């Protein structure tokens, strides 16, 4: 299987399968990952083919799941942990922040923590509370963790391979409302490095920087803007920690304008970090202040209001207009 069209969900499934095949030390752990194949079916069929020793249904205890994954990693395993939904990672937050993130540094580099924590995240699926959150900034703020989010099937496949091979703990945010979006996957191509940003669409008037679920919205916004004669460049950051600031800088030096778009609340969000750094790096290139589009400083609303809360095409284009008006 070289080139094919797959959903993000299926690409992740194939990638996890490949990881289990390639390295006997790779394990999958989580709630309902076995027979059910996960509530989103990302691990579908894996327990059947690799057994209960490799694809492990765990007790319902996130702190336990991550804490034992740390122990398994100390013993030479490479656990891939599934947290069922974004809002349920917090029982494990203590283990992730106080232990997983710091183990390597505390051991003066003698210990590696090759743990991948997969988290389906973000809104847009009409779910009840705690099922639609975007807590990436809470993880990106913690030194020792790396945080990534693919926006398409090819990245889903390759970034998962790279995350599993990484000796650092990786928080792997999967944009759940894009699980069923299909895209091209070439399993024999040479992938981009894990933390490299990519120009998803070329443009010259303004840069839209996004990751995960918002890349699609930004591409749609760029297409709509094109009809009004505006040329927008769309950057898919792919990684929120580290951030490929060089790529953002290159784009902004070309366009002179930057709008950062994410679902997470704007306040203290990743857009704030990007705006600050790019202002430092590109002060004389900027034609307008860096603008941010994202969620509000309010609890993620009930499903009937999420379309208002999530940045859509209109809000992105509105920010584009404001930037261009400077």
């Amino acid at each position, binding site marked *: 299987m070289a080139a094919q069209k797959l959903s993000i969900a299926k690409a992740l499934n194939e990638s996890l399968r490949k990881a289990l095949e390639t390295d006997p030390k790779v394990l999958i752990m989580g*709630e*309902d990952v*076995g*027979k*059910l*194949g996960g*509530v989103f079916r990302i691990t579908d069929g894996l327990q059947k083919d690799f057994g209960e020793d490799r694809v492990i*249904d*765990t*007790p*319902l*205890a*996130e*702190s*336990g799941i991550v804490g034992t994954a740390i122990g398994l990693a100390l013993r030479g395993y490479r656990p891939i942990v599934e947290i069922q939904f974004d*809002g*349920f990672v*917090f*029982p494990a937050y203590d283990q992730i922040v106080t232990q997983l993130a710091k183990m390597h540094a505390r051991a003066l580099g003698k210990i590696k923590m090759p743990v991948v924590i997969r988290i389906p995240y973000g809104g847009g699926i*009409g*779910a*009840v*509370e*705690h*099922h639609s959150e975007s807590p990436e900034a809470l993880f990106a703020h913690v030194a020792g963790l790396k945080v990534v989010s693919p926006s398409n099937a090819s990245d889903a496949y390759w970034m998962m391979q790279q995350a599993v091979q990484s000796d650092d703990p990786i928080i792997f945010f999967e944009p759940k409302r894009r699980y069923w979006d299909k895209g091209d996957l070439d399993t024999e191509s040479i992938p981009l490095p894990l933390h490299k940003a990519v120009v998803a669409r070329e443009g010259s008037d303004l840069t839209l920087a996004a990751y995960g679920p918002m890349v699609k919205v930004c591409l749609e916004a760029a297409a709509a803007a094109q009809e009004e004669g505006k040329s927008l460049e769309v950057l898919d950051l792919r990684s929120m920690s580290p951030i490929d600031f060089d790529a953002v800088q290159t784009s902004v030096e070309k366009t002179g304008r930057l709008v950062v778009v994410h679902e997470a609340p704007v*306040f203290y969000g990743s857009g704030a970090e990007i705006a600050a750094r790019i202002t430092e790096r590109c002060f004389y290139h900027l034609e307008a202040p860096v603008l941010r589009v994202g969620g*509000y*400083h*309010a*609890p993620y*609303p*009930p*499903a*009937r*209001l*999420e379309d*208002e*809360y999530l940045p859509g095409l209109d*809000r992105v284009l*509105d920010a584009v207009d404001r930037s261009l008006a400077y």
Partner: protein
Amino acid sequence: MTVESTAARKPRRSSKRTSAAKTPQSSEPQLVQLLTPEGERVEHPDFEIDLSPDELRGLYRDMVLTRRFDAEATALQRQGELGLWASLLGQEAAQIGSGRALRDDDYVFPTYREHGVAWCRGVDPTNLLGMFRGVNHGGWDPSTNNFHLYTIVIGSQTLHATGYAMGVAKDGADSAVVAYFGDGASSQGDVAEAFTFSAVYNAPVVFFCQNNQWAISEPTEKQMRVPLYQRAQGFGFPGVRVDGNDVLACLAVTRSALERARRGEGPTLVEAFTYRMGAHTTSDDPTKYRADEERAAWEAKDPILRLRTYLEKQDLADAAFFAALEEESETLGKRVREAVRAMPDPDRLAIFDHAYADGNPLVDEERAQFAAYQASFAEEGN
């Protein structure tokens, strides 16, 4: 998933039914039972109960109406009126039995499935649907009925219940608190911490675990190696396993645990051994992980059927009673259906309501921006 309304269909007679040899009853002698699956009254040395015919009919009515409500909600989800529903089908006895053991001044901390307990507390069932429809995250004022909001993050509420109970004790009140949770939730660290705190502070709290055998796709063997109720002992308080499909036993056991709490003797863990007859939620597909025969075996222990058999055998209820109840069920179903369809979407600005009690300038600013932005569409005539 198949969730039928058994209130609507004619219950089958149970006389010829034999409970399977490997039922938990036979393998678990500790299970408290007062009413057998065949509808026979049995005695238990520690848990006695003496209910009037009215009270017995009341329990039956509660269970039938709760099941009817649940079936209606499932149907409404199928019709696209609700985004999700977590059915309690099969767990009516555990919820009504424990719920009817409560006094008004007691306080309940539910999960997301305690529709029957909410019914006992007097929460209008239509209020339970808002969060499943996606118009709010709760929909009722917990202090009105001493029934806290549904908690989705599993196990969290057991700590809230414990803290609340610690407060009750500090106040010198003699009310008690009940924390509901599932067998899967018992694996959470929060639940272990709740056990520790409640024991150490002798908090008047009853931990009511509905062991419905499954945590989504994971059977109880993936959560524990000793029967759940035995866990209490290690924390220093009693645990008891009750037949969760026996409403009388659930009532008696919960009542006794509440009395113990009121007397200042501390927490109790009640494990109601029951079964989730439907899917975990309407998003779940149980055919991926469990056998049909399992459900069939538990259907023979249906909590509603069993009480009906008893009522009929003892001549405690006549055809007119059942007919009137049937009608009441239909009326309830209709009321719920209409209420849900009439439930308006919230105002857009509600996103910003109640983010803080004392206000916050950032929220005010974002709210104003949002309002102006929305208004700009109106101006454009869109």
